[in-house]
């Protein structure tokens, strides 16, 4: 253990200036302070023991008032309630609005709130997309059916303006159908097989029929187009893509 001399020698070697000041005390204490200090401290302890003062209060003189932390939570909550009490605020601002505050004029469907949760859960859960298997569109059939109608009309017209003497049985049947206005009824009687068989032998007509059926009239050449360009119709038809139309 170092002795006093060693400590002073160390100081002397480090700083003669400070060594020269050693032992000088610039501070003072009140007269008799140390004479009564122990009595003061003991009295404080005794008062704390008898509950006259709280020793914690004495110990934390620079801290917080007595009971501060015990009541802190309640104080903060009371403040929050005071500030956040919407009803109370409304009552102060407008007693009239306050009186009708709980009146609800709106209704909801029965069991709405009971089922709301379920509905929302279903919505937020990723659902597998519903896959519906669609039959491949049978354009061939439509094409043939439409073409059959037009063919019938054309045939009918042809027979009407040609010699009546040359008509065969089929034509006679067609005329009868036209006369009775039962074209649709008769068309219904045709089997798919008959229609397919017919149209297979007259595909050009079927393509024309398809174009007629799906082309927008507004896109057709106008009268003026025909007058100014004799190839107006050809150009139009060239631009029509049958494959696009099928899709």
């Amino acid at each position, binding site marked *: 253990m*170092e002795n*006093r001399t060693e400590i002073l020698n160390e100081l002397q070697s480090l700083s003669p200036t400070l060594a020269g*000041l050693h032992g000088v005390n610039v501070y003072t204490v009140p007269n008799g302070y*140390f004479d009564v*200090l122990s009595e003061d401290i*003991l009295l404080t302890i005794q008062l704390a023991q008898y509950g006259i003062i709280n020793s914690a209060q004495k*110990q934390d003189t620079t801290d917080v008032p007595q009971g501060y932390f015990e009541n802190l939570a309640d104080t903060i909550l009371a403040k929050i309630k005071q500030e956040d009490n919407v009803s109370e605020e409304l009552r102060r601002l407008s007693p009239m609005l306050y009186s009708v505050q709980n009146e609800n004029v709106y209704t909801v469907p029965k069991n709405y709130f009971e089922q709301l949760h379920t509905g929302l859960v279903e919505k937020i859960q990723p659902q597998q997309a519903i896959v519906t298997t669609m039959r491949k569109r049978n354009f061939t059939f439509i094409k043939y059916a439409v073409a059959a109608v037009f063919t019938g009309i054309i045939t009918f017209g042809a027979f009407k303006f040609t010699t009546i003497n040359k008509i065969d049985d089929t034509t006679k049947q067609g005329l009868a159908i036209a006369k009775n206005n039962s074209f649709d009824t008769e068309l219904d009687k045709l089997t798919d097989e008959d229609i397919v068989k017919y149209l297979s032998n007259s595909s050009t007509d079927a393509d024309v029929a398809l174009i007629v059926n799906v082309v927008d009239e507004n896109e057709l050449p106008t009268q003026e187009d025909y007058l100014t360009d004799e190839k107006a119709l050809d150009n139009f038809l060239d631009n029509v893509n049958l494959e696009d139309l099928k899709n």
Partner: protein
Amino acid sequence: MNEHLDDKELLAQFKDPSSKEKGYTRIIKKYQEKLYWHIRRMVVQHEDANDVLQNMFIKVWNGLDNFREDSQLYTWMYRIATNESLTFLEQQKRKSTLSLSDEESGLSNKVKASEHFDANKLEWKLQVAIQQLPEKQRVVFNLRYYDEMPYQKMSEVLETSEGALKASYHHAVKKIEDFILNN
């Protein structure tokens, strides 16, 4: 004769219920001045030093029953006094919401506000210089310079290695000397 009882005898007196207060009073009287000045040099003002000292002795009262005699009473009380002083300064700092350097210059201002302060006197310059030191360095300097405490004991009080304390003290001395010579 009684005033020169050693710490063991004082502790025995304190632990005997019939002589508890007497033993306690003697402990205070034996160490009060040393501890007061140790605290006073840390907090500067008497009122603050008094508060810290009293709190420190109340803690001694509360903790002395459990005091383990494998360490010295003197060392134990110095540790309490140091911790109480540092806690007080920390509270002061939080209260004033000042930065560390501001707090230190605040202590310097307290020195300058002392009744007999004289900026031309070397001993007052020394006090201002001490307050420029970082807290821990200030403690080390005070314990060594004023209390002439050996590094070994200081090591027990501050729970720091002797080598670190020695380095800290040397740094502190040099800083103070520089401050005094340049101001």
